[in-house]
């Protein structure tokens, strides 16, 4: 076409006009730290594995978890999911049921026999791990993946630590635990059972290990002084729970008192019920609100008919009669004796007052520092003794499986660095993806999925798992409730809302790039990014 001068123009010719020069601020893509990841003691990249799960790509999701945590099926059941407490979705409706999805993925992996392989070259270094609880197992797993030879020495007859000797079956079926431990063993980790380390110095003197990771947990039950006529009526929760596992089933009788207010008390009480007690009463010196046990555990216990006696301390026992003193909370919320007493009949009393660490095997290890009954470690999980690291319940931290697993992972990385004569430097943390950084308009309304529960009759009499898992479709639904806080999930909003077509879509999985030739810096993309993955920064001239 012979175009008339000036009046008629070529299509698209405005590309010659670089409007990027108008800009005073430029958008940049950022990855912010999702609050769930931030809260996860095991350092899982939750948002990332949910991203895969959202697509139904469960194996990729599971593999993402496995980068940080070798036991998703266990974790999905027993983790107290601080991630969910931090989840931004809670501000819209209910947090994402992260644990339920994790459990689904873990179970699926077991069913599908998904495995991980050691890809690293053998380093020629060997590491001793003391204790096959979650912390020791996690450390062994990561160390093995890094190419190191690992030997675990475990005092007990099975691996698993408190996951096996503490957490009852109805919360953590043993085949699940076994399967996930087996996967670690399959990596070449040697577990020597019934091999208590009594004197670490001696062991280290006879065997050449390049490093040691201590993870012996806290197994010594704390006792309260209760004058009793028949001491055999009083036992501790740890022994009770451990006994069920080793077959030394204790006789509790029909009426059982459990003394304490933590999760262990709940497990002991609920186990007692399942062992045939007709009445189980938890005696606790403060109120329900002050109880350290998680709300859901108290709730489930109550559903199962466990009774509670608040604001009470047990003073003495005589002939099956327990004397109980009423307590009163003072201004600071501390329980104070009132001098009022009452009597309770019971066949046995289970003490669930917490555990101490058995440090006897450490002897006079050089440089070791112990404080408050726990072993002190530096920021690299190393004890005062060079090459000896420690984690889990035996170091100062919250005592949970998740923390223990996180310690195991971190210790493995530090040990790896130590073995290479360097110091582990964690990657820098991104800015936190707070709720205000999101544009929540874009997320569909979606109520949280409820996991199925075993019917009550079976809960009261068997050790079958109480809480059911999700199936494929509700796991997917639940995963899709994730807001992907702070991390691009390729929703195309920036690509779509730019009035200047200054966002380039790089293709699936490759995210986007800005075309600063045309970006005028209006910040629409940043404001309309649902997950807060775009930031405006001042232009420098």
């Amino acid at each position, binding site marked *: 076409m012979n175009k008339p001068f*000036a009046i008629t*123009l*070529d*299509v*698209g*010719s*405005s*590309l*010659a*006009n*670089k*409007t990027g020069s*108008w800009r005073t601020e430029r958008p940049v893509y950022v990855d912010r730290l999702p609050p769930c990841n931030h809260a996860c003691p095991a350092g899982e990249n939750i948002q990332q594995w949910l991203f895969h799960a*959202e*697509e*139904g790509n469960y194996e990729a999701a599971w593999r993402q978890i496995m980068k940080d945590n070798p036991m998703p099926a266990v974790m999905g059941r027993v983790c107290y999911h601080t991630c969910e407490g931090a989840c931004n979705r809670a501000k819209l409706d209910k947090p994402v049921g992260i644990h339920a999805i994790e459990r689904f993925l873990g179970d699926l992996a077991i069913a599908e026999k998904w495995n991980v392989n050691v890809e690293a070259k053998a380093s020629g270094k060997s590491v001793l791990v003391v204790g096959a609880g979650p912390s020791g197992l996690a450390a062994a797993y990561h160390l093995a993946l890094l190419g190191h030879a690992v030997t675990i020495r475990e005092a007990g007859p099975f691996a698993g630590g408190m996951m096996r000797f503490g957490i009852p079956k109805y919360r953590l079926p043993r085949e699940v635990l076994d399967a996930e431990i087996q996967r670690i063993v399959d990596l070449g980790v040697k577990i020597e059972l019934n091999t208590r380390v009594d004197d670490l110095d001696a062991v280290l003197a006879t065997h050449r290990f390049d490093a040691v990771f201590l993870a012996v947990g806290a197994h010594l039950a704390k006792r309260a002084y209760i004058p009793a006529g028949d001491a055999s009526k009083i036992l501790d929760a740890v022994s009770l729970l451990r006994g069920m596992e080793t077959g030394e089933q204790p006789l509790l009788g029909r009426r059982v008192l459990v003394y304490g207010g933590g999760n262990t008390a709940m497990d002991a009480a609920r186990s007692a019920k399942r062992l045939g007690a007709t009445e189980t009463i938890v005696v606790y010196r403060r109120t329900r609100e002050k109880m350290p046990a998680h709300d859901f555990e108290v709730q489930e216990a109550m559903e199962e008919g466990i009774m509670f006696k608040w604001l009470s301390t047990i003073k003495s026992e005589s002939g099956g009669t327990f004397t109980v003193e009423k307590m009163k909370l003072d201004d600071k919320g501390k329980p104070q004796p009132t001098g009022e007493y009452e009597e309770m009949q019971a066949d046995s009393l289970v003490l669930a007052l917490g555990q101490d660490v058995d440090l006897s095997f450490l002897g006079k290890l050089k440089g070791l520092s112990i404080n408050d009954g726990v072993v002190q470690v530096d920021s690299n999980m190393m004890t005062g003794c060079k090459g000896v690291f420690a984690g889990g319940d035996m170091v100062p931290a919250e005592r949970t499986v998740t923390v223990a697993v996180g310690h195991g992972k971190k210790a493995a990385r530090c040990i790896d660095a130590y073995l290479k004569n360097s110091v582990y430097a964690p990657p820098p943390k991104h800015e936190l993806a707070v709720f205000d950084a999101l544009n929540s*308009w*874009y*997320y*569909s309304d*979606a109520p949280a999925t409820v996991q199925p529960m075993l019917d009550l009759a079976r809960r009261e009499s068997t050790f079958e798992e109480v809480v059911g898992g999700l*199936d*494929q*479709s509700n*796991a*997917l*639904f639940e995963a*899709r*409730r*994730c807001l*992907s806080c702070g991390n691009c*999930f*390729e*929703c*195309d*909003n920036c*690509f*779509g*809302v*730019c*009035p*200047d*077509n*200054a966002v380039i*879509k790089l*293709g*699936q999985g490759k995210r986007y790039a800005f*075309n600063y*030739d*045309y970006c*005028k*810096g*209006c*910040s*629409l993309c*940043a*404001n*309309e990014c*649902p997950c807060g993955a775009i930031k*405006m920064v001042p232009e420098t001239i």
Partner: protein
Amino acid sequence: MTGASRVKFYQTGTFTVGNRLLDVSVRSVQSDADRNNSLNSGHRACQGCGEALGARYALDAAMRAVNGRLVVANATGCLEVFSTPYPESSWRVAWLHSLFANAAAVGTGMAAAMKVKGRKDVRVIAQGGDGGTVDIGFACLSGMFERDDDVLYICYDNEAYMNTGIQRSSATPAAARTMTTPAAGQEPGNVFGQGKNVPLIAMAHGIPYVATASVADLRDLEYKVGRAMAIHGARYLHVHVPCPLGWGCDTGDTLKVARLAAESGLFPIFEAEAGEVTGRRTIRRRVPVEDYLKMQSRFAHLFSPKRDERRIAMIQAIADRNIRRFGLLDKSEQGAHP
């Protein structure tokens, strides 16, 4: 994945432009890396211009709907001026600008030409700003409707004559400050007239399709363009496109302010066939008009130096009336599109 195919929940659903979880066939036009970009980069619209965005949304959708067989007539106004200053054009469609008032008639002529040339596949869109549509171009628009000419007319409503520097049009809302309705005197800003609802007037012509849409709801907009292009005869689409400059809001708040217009009920989004309302976009998270007004300096005089309770209430009443009239809270009748 069996689970994936059964689950009908997609994280952001169709609220976001794209969604990797949706089947490709139901994804938006704008999410397509190969979309037409009917309005190309390098145009001179202000930062965050809603009109530039709305025009690309609408024309890209139309281009997809008619397989690229499209010609466009454009009225004078920002859209025309910022897209075609010699020697550069931002259009990637066959496009003609004639005058301010005649886009609808030019569209009629184009449609007539295509018909007489036997080019049945080529479809016509005429488009303009609110001034070019509801004021000066109104006669041509009505004529085109009345004859039922095969033209889709798209009005990009930014609620004033923006290109000439923000003067009042008959689409300017009550109380809004413009350069010809200054924030001065006893009743600062635009008068509370009776309003001029051109979509309803279009419906009164009994034309096959009338709809309103907003840049804040892309999927709805694209659906409506698609629907319109599937129909022959005179069609009208009225798209709400905030103008950050004229409204006095942040350049990054264009979509937010458009969203609040819809969520407050001030800009009702509905569609009508043959003169009957057949669908409405219901309000998802209702907000008081105040939330919307406060974002824009053109309404600043309603809040300072003293709150103008009376007139804020009058504006709320307008929103409430829209909500009643169009059933904007009636969740039972949500649009059929995803």
